[in-house]
């Protein structure tokens, strides 16, 4: 591996200042599971690697009791999310997505923020955060700004972050009652594999437990960036959710997707799986909503 100087700032401001000092010869690093591979392979050759792991505020994971807003620090690892009861019980779509990223060893190191910034079309971590209307806080030389997670991605490996900016946290607005969410990483095997297609569905229903008031259908590996199938979402909103309607939504989502042939799979197969899995994930959302309603 090409030698570099490893810098370990204690605050975000210090990290941004270090980047300002070294400019394009520097790279930020979170868990390192992508950056170290890229340095080893020579795809990236920084003279300075700025480690963000020692910055205390970036490891937060909590729900604000008063507002219901969930905060996920950018340096929270996939394993920490997977093992959090809060995530497992209240944000099943996040649990579904992070519990099969890489391997446990990778999840113990890799972070949710790093997963977003790596910006691969298959980013398992991005899909649930888009479905949950997550917002990313970016801090850089020119101050702070926030961007919806769905708007973070420009194209494969490229985000809207400007040089020197750091993703510090993701916030998720309070979930309304009667929300169900689910994700499936669809592929040949669960571990150590990128999905053939990633499908996340979030449904909110009215008090009648049938009428959909909000739908989110998010797809990974269905285009150059993670995307939302908005026509399919609109089909569901305002309607009673049935298995038949979910099938129609699946068809629409498959049509909206920009899937293509790749070494891992064929476009037609991906479309078929979107069609099938949108319905299945939708039904799982309903199961979750009804189960919770019974408990209440």
């Amino acid at each position: 591996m090409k030698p570099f100087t490893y810098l370990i700032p204690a605050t975000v401001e210090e990290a941004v200042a270090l980047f300002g000092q070294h400019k394009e010869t520097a790279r930020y690093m979170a868990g390192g599971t992508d950056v170290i591979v890229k340095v080893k392979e020579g795809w990236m050759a920084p003279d300075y690697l700025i480690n963000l792991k020692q910055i205390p505020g970036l490891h937060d994971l909590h729900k604000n009791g008063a507002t219901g807003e969930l905060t996920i620090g950018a340096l929270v690892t996939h394993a920490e999310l997977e093992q959090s009861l809060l995530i497992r019980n209240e944000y099943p779509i996040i649990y579904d997505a992070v519990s099969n990223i890489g391997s446990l060893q990778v999840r113990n190191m890799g972070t949710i923020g790093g997963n977003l910034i790596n910006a691969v079309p298959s980013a398992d971590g991005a899909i649930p955060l888009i479905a949950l209307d997550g917002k990313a806080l970016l801090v850089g030389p020119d101050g702070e700004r926030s961007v919806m997670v769905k708007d973070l991605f420009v194209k494969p490996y490229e985000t809207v972050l400007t040089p020197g900016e750091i993703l510090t946290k993701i916030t998720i607005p309070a979930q309304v009652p009667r929300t169900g969410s689910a994700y499936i990483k669809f592929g040949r095997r669960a571990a150590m594999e990128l999905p053939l297609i990633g499908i996340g569905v979030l449904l909110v229903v009215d008090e009648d437990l049938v009428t959909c008031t909000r739908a989110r259908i998010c797809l990974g590996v269905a285009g150059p960036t993670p995307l939302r199938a908005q026509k399919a979402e609109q089909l569901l909103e305002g309607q009673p959710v049935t298995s038949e309607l979910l099938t129609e939504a699946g068809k629409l989502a498959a049509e909206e997707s920009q899937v293509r042939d790749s070494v891992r799979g064929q476009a037609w197969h991906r479309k078929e799986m979107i069609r099938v899995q949108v319905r299945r994930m939708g039904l799982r959302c309903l199961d979750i909503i009804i189960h919770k309603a019974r408990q209440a």
Partner: protein
Amino acid sequence: MTKTISFILNGDETFCDIRDHWTLLHLLREELGLIGTKEGCGNGECGACTVIVDQLAVNSCLYLAADVQGKQVQTIEGLAVHTGSLHPIQQSFVDNGGIQCGFCTPGMIMSAKALLDKDPKADQEAVKHALAGNICRCTGYVQILDSVAAAGRQMAGKKTDKAAGFSDPGSVTRQPGDQTAGEVTR
């Protein structure tokens, strides 16, 4: 850049001069002579290099040596006690035929240890989930899973991390190039 780090390695306080771009795997194998930890793919795909850092299984090929400053690191060399008796997981791999060529074995055992230390009663699904990042190219995984399950039963019976050789840290100073540390495995 060169810096000095200190950490607990298999129970011993350890001081090392390292270079910033060294991985933990490089430090262990090339500088400290602890060659029990294997390098397979070098990219976090195979799990052969798995070690435990502060109770978590990690790929030492992706973990920078600088990041173990102040942490506890366990490698396969730390499992057997010096009198020669194996850790229950090691013994179980021997007894249940969980080893063929042996290259993946240290990583398998470290992944298993990270799991069983936390939850010796882990069911088969939990074992599979924890070992999914450890690839064995010889053959099937059945005997490996059996080995872990049997070790778990034994560890649940008597919770003895003392027997694993992680008693009080002594104070041994190892410097890069000091090969004596590797003798345990050879």
